[in-house]
């Protein structure tokens, strides 16, 4: 039994006349890991940026859970719809400590309330849980800017995890975009990320993954979406899609 949770209709975006996403209609199934693959410049990152409101759409529609229709996605609203993401070039709050990077996601108070309240023990416990899971608890007092590249990637995933634990924005995150989460990670760090993604799937959350490593794609994906020049080339279960002639041609070149 499957159901669509996120859908695009005739999504269109061009940059200076170059079509980055060209009338793309694609849907993502609830609770599955869907990998988006395609050659460089095929529109994978642009698609994620459009869906999270980082880049405004030129035309088309985004539909969340069949009921919310958007022709404009605003980045300050996406968290309220249960969407969250990581970035290809890791983006953290550099001047905050590792712990605060997580707490600021879990809690936020206005100026007056914040003078009288500190972090609830619940929030500290949640932060401890996600940081321990990512192996960053020992580093909790370092500033994010001082972390190694791999630790930064893990912290970004920890932040996503925190958003799946918190309903502060009205809704805990249940659609997660991972933009190349494995790039540049050591094998043991990769294993941590793989197990986190599998756990999130077991919790019933929808994950959309942009990745180049075919081995990881085969291991993790329930579905694969292939983009080429901003258009949908193929969609389906990994073994079938990855065996298609046109996919191999587009992806591997000549």
């Amino acid at each position, binding site marked *: 039994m499957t159901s669509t949770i996120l859908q695009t209709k005739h999504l269109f975006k061009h940059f200076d006349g170059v079509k980055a996403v060209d009338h793309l209609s694609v849907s993502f199934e609830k609770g599955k890991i869907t990998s988006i693959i395609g050659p460089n410049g095929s529109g994978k990152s642009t698609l994620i940026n459009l869906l999270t*409101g980082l880049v405004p759409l030129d035309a088309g529609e985004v539909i969340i859970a069949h009921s919310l229709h958007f022709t404009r996605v605003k980045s300050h609203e996406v968290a309220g719809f249960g969407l969250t993401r990581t970035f290809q070039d890791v983006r953290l*709050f550099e001047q905050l400590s590792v712990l605060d990077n997580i707490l600021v996601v879990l809690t936020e108070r206005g100026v007056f309330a914040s003078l009288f309240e500190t972090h609830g023990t619940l929030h500290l416990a949640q932060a401890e849980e996600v940081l321990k899971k990512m192996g960053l608890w020992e580093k909790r007092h370092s500033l994010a800017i001082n972390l190694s590249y791999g630790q930064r990637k893990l912290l970004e995933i920890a932040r996503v995890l925190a958003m799946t634990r918190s309903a502060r924005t009205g809704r805990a995150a249940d659609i997660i975009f991972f933009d190349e989460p494995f790039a540049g990670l050591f094998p043991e760090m990769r294993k941590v990320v793989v197990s986190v993604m599998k756990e999130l799937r077991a919790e019933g959350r929808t994950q959309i993954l942009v990745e180049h490593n075919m081995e990881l794609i085969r291991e993790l994906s329930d579905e694969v979406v292939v983009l080429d020049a901003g258009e949908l080339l193929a969609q389906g279960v990994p073994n079938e899609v990855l065996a298609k002639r046109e996919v191999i041609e587009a992806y591997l070149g000549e």
Partner: protein
Amino acid sequence: MDIVPQLIANSLIAGSIYAILTLGFNLTYSTAKFIDIGFGVETAIGGYSVFYLCKTLGLPLYFGIFLGLFCSGLVSFLAYRFIYKPLRARKASGTVLLIASLGVLTALQALVAILFTSQFQTLSGLIQANRVFELLGGTFTAVQLSIFCTVLILSVLLAFLLKGTLFGKAITAISDDEEVAKIVGINTERVMGEVFFISGMIGGLAGILIGFDTGIEPIMGLSWLLAAVVAAIVGGIGNLYGGLVGAYLLAFAENFGIWKISGEWKMAIAFGLLIIFLVWRPRGLFPR
């Protein structure tokens, strides 16, 4: 008579006013990332609010100061809410926002002049006696001493707000990466509105203190703002504590500069310092 102790005292007093203004200026700069010229007018708003409430209406002084701070905070918040926020939502560049804030300054100082005439006013009549102290050959008044103390208290308060509270962490997150702050669900617009309110109060506080020390006039904002911008750039723009160093450095340069040359050169010294920094150390002493 040796003039050096008095020059030091004067530098510390001027530097303290600059420091208060620079704290307020850097607070909005580090979150909203544009040079808010409109911040300057909050000095006149604060000063004239106290002037009107206490001198004209005869309200008690502390009540008047409290309301004056609230008024300047509110004006700053409204400028954000109705001018800067819509422009930022349209992804206006820093230059557009700077020009819009220049408009805010010009319009509001004209409004103050219409309401209170453009005559120079002083608040000093509101306090009975302004005691004069002498220390190591330099003299300063009770008002000037309280200006110096204000810097200390304000710095500690802001440090606590930014490092110790949830609100401060949200401010830091926004100043690091506003886009990501939005995506992780921080209410960036509310936080920024509150930041503008606080910075407006700081500007108003400086204006009130200036009113007690020397005096206020509607067009006072721009020259004080320019001093704050120079101090902020010297200290490393957006860096709150760098700005404090910049403020005192600027004041010492100005006051010791006019030791041997005429006082009209004060502004030239400030901008000379700015040019030196922009050419040789454009990111300031403590870059963020």
